[in-house]
């Protein structure tokens, strides 16, 4: 009881200490959690990567990373599997670069597209991540995807739609050997 009263009196006399204590407590919790979780982070990331890649290119596992030496600056990594590749691309979006992973069969058919990272506007460009109707349009395209022709853009997010299209075409270009600098093409569509 005495200790409780002393603490109460301490905080009453020094009002600034209450928020400072809250900040320090939050820092301690976050630093401890980060230290505890650090050991499992790499393992979980690897698991998630394998899971996503095996969904983008069904039956393609195991995947091995291949060094990319092409000219296309949009391609950041290539993972070759059985019968095709999963290509990681980074393309300029409306707000920030968008990371798009594309599964492509060796004959150039797109088997899967997923957006791994983006900072587009909520309710507009960010919908590209979850809009199945939009993403499904790229399946079985062969590097010929174009917004306004065989791809319908997401309403209010034409720039994001064109950016994703550009990423998909770049990935197909890598697999089919039509790997040119797609970065030079304005908005890919």
């Amino acid at each position, binding site marked *: 009881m005495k200790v409780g009263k002393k603490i109460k009196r301490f905080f009453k006399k020094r009002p600034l200490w209450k928020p400072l204590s809250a*900040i320090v407590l939050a820092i301690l919790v976050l630093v401890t959690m980060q230290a505890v979780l650090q050991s499992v982070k790499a393992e979980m990331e690897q698991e998630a990567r394998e899971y996503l890649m095996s969904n983008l290119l069904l039956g393609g596992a195991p995947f091995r990373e291949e060094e990319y030496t092409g000219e296309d600056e949009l391609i950041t990594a290539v993972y070759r599997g059985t019968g095709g590749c999963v290509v990681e691309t980074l393309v300029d979006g409306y707000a920030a670069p968008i990371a798009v992973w594309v599964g492509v069969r060796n004959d150039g058919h797109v088997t899967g597209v997923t957006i791994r990272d983006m900072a587009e506007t909520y309710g507009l460009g960010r919908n590209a991540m979850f809009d199945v109707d939009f993403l499904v349009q790229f399946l079985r395209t062969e590097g010929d995807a174009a917004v306004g022709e065989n791809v319908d853009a997401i309403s209010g997010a034409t720039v994001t739609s064109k950016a994703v299209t550009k990423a998909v075409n770049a990935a197909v270009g890598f697999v089919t050997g039509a790997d040119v600098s797609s970065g030079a093409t304005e908005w890919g569509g």
Partner: protein
Amino acid sequence: MKKQTYLLNILLAIFVGGICLTMLLFDVLAPYVVVPHLSIPLLVLMTVVPLAVENYVGAPQKREWAGTLIMGTLTLTVLPICAGQLGDVSILRLFVCSAAVFCLTTVLYTSMSKRMAGGAKAKAAPAVNALLLYLAAQFFQGIM
């Protein structure tokens, strides 16, 4: 007006700490989930929620502005760093953005809340004001 307290800063530390912890957990335990980046709208969201909650839980506060703004900036800068959510944003940039966002949002919201309608019929006013400020921040980022 009542005596000076730092209720806003305590709520801010709890809310920002909670968001950072959630982002950290998603980052590690569910890496396939795309976690929102640190951005101006997110910083605004992390500021307006405690401001709205302060309106609901506490009587009107007389702010000690210097202390409130310094500690708010400190909270918005340090907690994301501790949670490893910095990404490719530099610490200086985060500090400047946090300071600008927290100061502007707090001053705007406080000035709005002084003019808010009170009483039972205006229970939603603090939340609606917070939502409007968040939407304005999204719009602001869109035109930048």
